[in-house]
């Protein structure tokens, strides 16, 4: 009898997801500009894989297929994963990663709302560990590439028709990667960043994509699809960490802006760590969570075995979420803390 409230205001889950996909479009456009249209093929591949895997699992689990396919969460996972992969990755890499993300990291845990780990990052981490060579070979941005690849060439790379073509010919170490290897050769940061792949703030070309993520992120904030806590805390702590190290020894540590504008910092700040399902819910918890990811990311970048560390940091902090939530319960009205 009492079904109040009779009113609802909220955008549905699918509207939220669609808006997040929209927010990714500037970055997709930037990708096309910087690396060529191959990213579109990867997005399509990932989307098809994600939707099929999701439908298959829903069917196996005897769940209604349509509402859950329509919620857009599988699509979002697929896009985030595709945007994290090198744009000339072979087709099977995309398929395997997406399949893993949807089937293992999401559906086997109970589907939407039940996954303790960020599915896209699980997919990414599995690929990085299993296929480190492919995963760390990023193509050079078009403006730096010696051999300009046509769209047909790119397709050949993706679909493996070009075994003869060596990936090394078109790839180029990413700035984070390059920085790391050069530092081990005792070059100073100042010398290293004068290499071709470095741009104004981060990676040449890559900066553009990072800027596009920032724009998309601001749109999410403006639409109130995310709160400020996660991105601000993440970026601030990352900048603080980088700043402290940089001040201590500018020859061995890159400046904070470099860290903000390279790698997956912006993508992570606004789109990855903001995954609600696998993140904390309390405002304070969000600050702790984001700060933790930032610290871990920086440490992995500087001391770890991988060029970037967002994915692993997110997964590590995902494990802490129940604790973080329990420890950061806000004070309830009329109660002492």
């Amino acid at each position: 009898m009492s079904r109040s409230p009779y009113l609802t205001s909220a955008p549905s889950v699918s509207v939220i997801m669609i808006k997040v996909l929209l927010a990714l479009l500037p970055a997709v456009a930037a990708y096309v500009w910087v690396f060529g249209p191959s990213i579109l093929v990867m997005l399509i591949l990932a989307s098809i894989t994600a939707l099929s895997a999701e439908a298959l699992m829903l069917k196996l689990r005897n769940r209604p297929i349509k509402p859950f396919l329509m919620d857009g969460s599988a699509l979002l996972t697929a896009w985030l994963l595709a945007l994290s992969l090198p744009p000339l990755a072979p087709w099977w890499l995309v398929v395997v990663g997406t399949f893993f993300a949807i089937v293992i990291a999401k559906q086997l845990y109970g589907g939407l709302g039940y996954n303790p780990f960020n599915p896209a990052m699980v997919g990414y981490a599995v690929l990085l560990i299993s296929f480190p060579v492919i995963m760390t070979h990023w193509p050079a941005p078009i403006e730096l590439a010696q051999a300009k690849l046509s769209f047909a060439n790119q397709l050949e790379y993706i679909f493996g028709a070009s075994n003869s073509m060596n990936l090394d010919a078109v790839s180029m170490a990413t700035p984070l990667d390059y920085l790391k290897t050069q530092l081990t050769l005792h070059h100073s940061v100042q010398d290293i960043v004068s290499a071709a792949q470095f741009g104004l703030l981060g990676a040449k070309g890559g900066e553009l994509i990072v800027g596009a993520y920032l724009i998309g992120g601001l749109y999410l904030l403006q639409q109130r699809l995310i709160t400020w806590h996660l991105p601000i805390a993440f970026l601030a702590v990352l900048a603080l960490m980088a700043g402290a190290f940089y001040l201590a020894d500018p020859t061995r540590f890159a400046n904070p802006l470099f860290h903000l504008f390279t790698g997956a910092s912006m993508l992570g700040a606004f789109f990855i760590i903001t995954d609600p399902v696998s993140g904390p819910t309390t405002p304070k918890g969000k600050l702790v969570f984001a700060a933790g990811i930032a610290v871990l990311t920086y440490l992995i970048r500087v001391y770890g075995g991988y060029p970037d560390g967002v994915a692993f940091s997110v997964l590590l902090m995902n494990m802490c979420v129940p604790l973080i939530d329990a420890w950061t319960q806000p004070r309830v009205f009329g109660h002492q803390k």
Partner: protein
Amino acid sequence: MSSLFNIVKQGLGFSDAQVAVTGGVHPPEHKQESSSQPIGYLALPKRLVLPLRQHVGTLPKILVNVGDTVLKGQLLAEAEGNISAAIHAPTSGTIAAIEDALIPHPSGLPDRCLIIDVDGKDEWIAHLSLDWRTQDKTKLLESLRKSGIVGLGGAAFPTQVKLRTSARTHVNTLVINAAECEPYITCDDMLMRERAEQILRGIEVAQYLLGAKECLIGIEDNKPEAAEAMRLACASSPLNQEVTLKVIVVPTQYPSGDARQLIRLLTGIEVPADKRSTEVGLQCFNVATLLALHRYFDHGEPALSRIVTITGNVKKPANYEVLFGTPVTDLIQAAGGALAGTNDYIMGGPMMGFSLPSADVPITKAANCIIVSSPNLFAPVPPAMPCIRCARCADVCPVSLQPQELYWFSKSSNLEKAREYKLFDCIECGCCTYACPSNIPLVQYYRFAKSEIIAQDRSKEAADLARERNEFRLMRIEREKQERAVKHAQKAVGAKVEADKASTNETPISVDDPAMEAKKAAIAAAIERAKAQKKSLAPQNVSDPSPSVQAEMIEIDARREAAKIAVNEQASSQDEK
């Protein structure tokens, strides 16, 4: 974000509230529709149905019989017990029946009602104003029990209880709730626009009874006319000279009209969860309640009617002064009738109201608003999706709960956890459900979990009580058995003694006579039996008593038995003398 916005808004001086709003939502107001015309009056209905259950507390005691003629204002049922409210005849007529009828209650179940056939004369019973300023406060409060006034903001708590002060409580600040934060409802708004002075008179009464030093009137900023009317009335009120009297405009943000929320907004004081507001010097009344106080004290009129908003899917949404007991259908009729597509009737606002079992129920004291509903007005809720932990619900919860956790605990029947996460601090405002993108009926889950916990607590209490009773019963049975046994033994020994006496007539009774022997034997036997019984009973009584405890219990029982026997002995020997 929203709180940030409010802080900025306040910094710029848009509101005079003491503190920033936390949580809450701002649904479309829909107040315009019903607030564009003056308060109307309904024709006298043919029949009035007065449920006994119109307030929080004990049901009142019926004073009339079927067939009695009653006058307007006549007491039909008197308050019974501490928390209760009287019921009066809203107009003159005859008591046609006292029977179960449908009442406006979320349960949808029928309940006991007084039914009056209206005679149309509207003839008043003799009634006088009370010269309340010169009278003793205890007398006034006693008389208030006969007023039938309850909180008219929707809570329906008997007002006489709220005006009593005790040693533990004092009221410094009177908070007057004119926030009317629920969408659609405009009855308080219209009342303030039209009868601000009468409300002020009511405030005078409440201030006098409570001895408050300060009266703060909280109005949401979407009712500028009402706020202005109240300001004017305040300025010309004599109370203005005696105490601080202020109209405070607060931001329009549901649920600012919740008493504790409003108190915080107006005074900055957060009433502790385990205390009543009077324990920290505050009391809160709704404007309509105050007006009812004025009518009672200054005119001797008990609670007979209230202003009700009729809105939604009707031709002419408006406010009416409606006699209690009037069928909702009459009200809908007056508003031009329900329009096509009507599928539901809601009592209260869209955030906390409930669907009526039918439009044939009467208007009661708690009925502030009737919304004639249609799917266009309130779309059916789409099927719920899983919780995506987006925390939108937590962002809007005015008491800073974590609704998504409470949902999880309620759903998995983890009631202990739900309680630990302060389920009982939930005011069921519905903000969380309103904000949930997965359309989860969160409040329903909380209502369910609350009732489950209460039921569990009750049954645990009952079980404890039953266990205690059972233990006691077993003890009694055992004791009686032993007493009977001892008596038997005594009788047998007595008979033998008699027989002996009869045979050897001259023999004097020696010190170690057989009676004494029998007594000793009986005591020993009783001790033995008690031991044996205790052993067999032990598992039922005490789960696992240690040997020493057991021994002690046996000893105590035996001693008790011995004492019993001795007393019996004495009594019977006295009888003999």
